[in-house]
């Protein structure tokens, strides 16, 4: 099978089936596949696609959309996006029904109590890693990260406000 569109779709389908902990965890493997195994793009192109998907609104998995777009145009983007969503759609729906049925059971409560702190820890770790990469140890950018967090903690206003301020500061060359 030499068709890049089919290969990429199958690869993403497989990755989204094993991506426990969020789609972002599969990005290194996606990179290895499209750059080093298949040679469809350079490392530099992949890095740009990733940065753009982070700067764009929407869930992290749209990095796969962009990779599909780069490899096979519109059909690539569409199939790559579908491949990221379908496995989760089925599995999460089944999990939700299971939870509705057994959610009051003692053992289920206990498993939930065990899982929650791990999930919270992973979120905080993601925030820490992201702050470190985006700031490049530049104090002004770290302060911006802290200010954005504080804004969301003390007000209930839209998160768009700190993002717009940050975009304006960056565009003015103040960061």
């Amino acid at each position, binding site marked *: 099978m030499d068709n890049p569109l089919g290969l990429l779709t199958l690869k993403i389908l497989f990755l989204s*089936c094993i*991506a*426990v*902990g*969020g*789609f972002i965890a599969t990005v290194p493997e996606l990179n290895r596949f499209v750059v080093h195994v298949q040679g469809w793009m350079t490392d530099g192109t992949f890095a740009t696609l990733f*940065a753009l998907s982070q*700067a*764009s*609104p*929407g*869930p*992290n*998995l749209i990095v796969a*959309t*962009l990779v599909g777009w780069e490899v096979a145009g519109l059909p690539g983007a569409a199939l790559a996006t579908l491949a*990221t*969503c379908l*496995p*989760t*759609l089925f*599995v*999460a729906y089944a*999990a*939700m029904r299971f*939870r*509705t049925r057994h959610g009051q059971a003692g053992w289920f409560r*206990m*498993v*939930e*109590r*065990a*899982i929650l*702190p*791990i999930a*919270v*820890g*992973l*979120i905080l770790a*993601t925030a*820490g890693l992201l*702050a470190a990469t*985006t700031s490049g140890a530049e104090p002004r*950018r770290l302060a911006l*990260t802290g200010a*954005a*967090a*504080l804004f*969301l903690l003390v007000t209930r206003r839209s*998160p*768009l406000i*700190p*993002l717009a*301020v*940050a*975009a*304006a500061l*960056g*565009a003015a*060359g103040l960061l």
Partner: protein
Amino acid sequence: MADDPPVPASPVTPLQLFVGFATISIVGFGGVMPWVRWLVVDRRRWCSAEEFASLFALANFLPGGNVLGVSVMVGGRLAGRRGSLAAVLGLVAPAAVLVCLLAELYRRNAHLEAVQGMVEGMGSAAAGLIAAMGLRMVWPLRKSPRALVIVLLVVTAAAVLRLPLVWILATMLPASLIAARLTER
């Protein structure tokens, strides 16, 4: 193959779910999870904070994007199978179209310093939004030393030691289960 009966006293339609999720998909810069929480808990009050936290925790142990998993579960709980589909379509489709447009726009303007600065500034703020979401989720755990120790261990393992996720889950899940069992009243 009948649909599940909808959650009682739930006036939410698939269309409302689609519109809600599509809106945050378009404004949700910097990873959409903080926005999903804002929409579902703060803005629309579709779920309580506790329920959201527990759905979120469950989604982290399912394959695929965890935002996606939460959306499927919130949509499904409020409006059955069609609710799940509406939430996912709203969450993903507008963002997928937008990111392709953005990639073309960037290709034409990547040489401008202001454009690069803007993208970088938004990255820093996005990290802060995720931190705020994590801290908000720690707050309900504040009276449980068991949970706080596990949060701390996971943060250290993932952000400081940078261990592979599979290792973290394989060690911390049994440890956390034992701790939860021992502290059960």
